């Protein structure tokens, strides 16, 4: 491999990285522009939101200048960019704390769900897709396709409610909303923000068990959607690969059938699957908004909807920027992985 690092290739890699950085930067700026414009389009007067409608004209004007709203729009935008890059997303009207602080507090809970769901989706969805593609039109194939179809058609908030009703209300197998039972709240020190890890750090084993029980249902729910999507895409990719001539070559060589499927064919599927997994992560961020609402899960999604219902524009826009940035980052990373993994793309 080292012999490949000729000067020419290094320059090429540098150029590609630069191009990638430019793309990331411009997309991020565009992201900020959109949220900025949304913020300025609000029919509610932001100054009034701060000073109240009983304020005198002098106070109003002072506040207006303090908020920088007297400046031309493009100047405001530059200030906005500067603020964001410094980590200042404004102050939440609801909590009276900096939005950034709020988001850092709630963000890990969402990541906990999204990551767990992705893992479920990958570990269950991809093998299901493989089996489905190999044994086409078998019972397993039909079941997988139905599961996939349901995943595209069932409203997640409804399924969440149904799941709560069945497993919590009727069967009492799983605990109800929230990350832990009510009387366990606020006991464990939030170090990482991920409840289970924090419990381990604090050696609160009973609370940890409680937390694990609580995370099962929302994680499974989101995981189902991830699994439906990944199994469908895997099936599609696998069918395409199994049609290819190099699969015949492998069989002619005498390669064992399991290896033909799981190493040769799936190996070629993994590359486009990287992109698919990244996209599914974005879908999970979306699904998380509704899931957190149903399960009272204190994550970014719940924060976003609460802020929204309270017209807390700074919080809403701040959350939007964060979610958009995460999604952008995940996509960029997957593009990068794609280039590394696919020899044809180098």
């Amino acid at each position, binding site marked *: 491999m080292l012999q490949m690092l000729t000067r020419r290739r290094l320059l090429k890699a540098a150029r590609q990285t630069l191009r990638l950085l430019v*793309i990331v930067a*411009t*997309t991020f700026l*565009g*992201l900020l*522009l*959109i*949220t900025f414009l*949304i*913020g300025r*389009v*609000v*029919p509610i007067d932001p100054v009034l939101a701060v000073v109240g409608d009983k304020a005198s004209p002098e106070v109003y004007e002072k506040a207006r200048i303090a908020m920088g709203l007297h400046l031309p729009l493009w100047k405001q935008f530059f200030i906005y960019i500067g603020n964001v890059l410094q980590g200042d997303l404004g102050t939440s009207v609801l909590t009276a704390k900096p939005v950034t602080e709020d988001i850092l507090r709630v963000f890990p809970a969402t990541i906990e769900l999204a990551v767990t769901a992705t893992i479920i989706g990958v570990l269950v969805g991809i093998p299901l897709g493989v089996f489905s593609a190999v044994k086409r039109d078998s019972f397993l194939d039909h079941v997988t396709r139905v599961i996939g*179809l*349901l995943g*595209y*058609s*069932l*409203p*997640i*908030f*409804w399924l969440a*409610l*149904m799941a*709560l*009703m069945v497993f919590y*209300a009727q069967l009492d197998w799983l605990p109800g909303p929230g990350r832990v039972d009510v009387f366990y709240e606020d006991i464990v020190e939030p170090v990482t923000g991920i409840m289970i890890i924090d419990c381990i750090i604090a050696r609160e084993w009973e609370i940890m068990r409680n937390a694990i029980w609580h995370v099962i249902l929302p994680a499974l729910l989101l995981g189902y959607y991830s699994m439906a999507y990944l199994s469908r895409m895997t099936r*599609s990719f696998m*069918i*395409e690969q199994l049609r290819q001539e190099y699969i015949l070559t492998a069989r002619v060589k005498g390669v064992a059938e399991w290896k033909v499927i799981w190493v040769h064919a799936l190996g070629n599927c993994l590359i486009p699957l990287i992109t698919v997994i990244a996209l599914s992560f*974005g*879908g999970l*961020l*979306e699904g998380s*908004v*509704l899931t957190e*609402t149903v399960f009272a899960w204190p994550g970014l999604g719940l924060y*976003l*909807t609460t*802020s*929204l*219902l309270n*017209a807390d*524009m700074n919080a*809403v*826009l701040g*959350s*939007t920027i964060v*979610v*958009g940035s995460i*999604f*952008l980052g995940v*996509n960029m990373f997957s593009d990068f992985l794609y280039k590394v993994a696919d020899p044809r793309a180098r």
Partner: protein
Amino acid sequence: MTNRQNLTGARAWLLTDTPDSAFQAASGRFYLGLLEFFRNRLAVVGLLIIITLVLTATFAPQIAPYDPIATDLASRLQPLSADHWFGTDEMGRDIFSRIVWGSRLTLYVILLVAIIAAPVGILVGTVSGYFGGVIDTVLMRITDIFLAFPKLILALAFVAALGPGIENAIIAISITSWPPYARIARAETLTIRNSDFIRAIRLQGAGPIRIITKHIMPLCLSSLIVRVTLDMAGIILTAAGLGFLGLGAQPPSPEWGAMTSAGRSYILDQWWLITMPGTAIFVVSLAFNLLGDGLREVLDPKSDS
């Protein structure tokens, strides 16, 4: 005897190997596509459900037995019965009637989003793909920026700014829906752009507008129709999600997502408040998925569903 001859005549005309006109050839292809489509039972089911939706929405006043908005607190939270097929909600309103009327809202959302997002997407995509260069780079950057947001999140942000309401929800969803269409249209345009027939038309003196609108756009249609239909399922879910959060059509509008949300408190004993509207959303979304899959098999034979 005469009828059978006519049928053979029409079919013979459609299926001939030597059509006399472009119209005949196109009709023949359409007929064959139709036959293939109807062979897919699931797709037909999807189509029937959607037709039912349209009919329900059109004839809502005739179909719904009760006024969807009128409250009747005396008969609140009634279970399913002969009087109230889907029971009553917390305000005593007949759920079946509300769902029937709610189909109008669903249809309204779908149609408007499709009418707004698809043309914008096709336009951006074809222009971007045809002209290339700076125009392409700029338009694709813009498209990518919109794609960088998960759809629901951006829709939420827009609704936050514009305020709740069904029109704002439609605008918000449309704004997040057009980018994939732009990408598809651009991909198709790039494939076609350098083909000989485009060169021929250009030699005949056709300007870019004519080329794009009359020649390139029609060729993008088939993949776009498939994509739009499949997207409809997601759009219904997004709209319902917004309704669930209280950001869509405002009460007392019988919007299915909002109905589901209102039923949350009664989940234990009066399960029909949530189940009925939720099932409605599910069924319609499923129908579009089935229809879209069926269309894809007919229009895009390369892909494997």
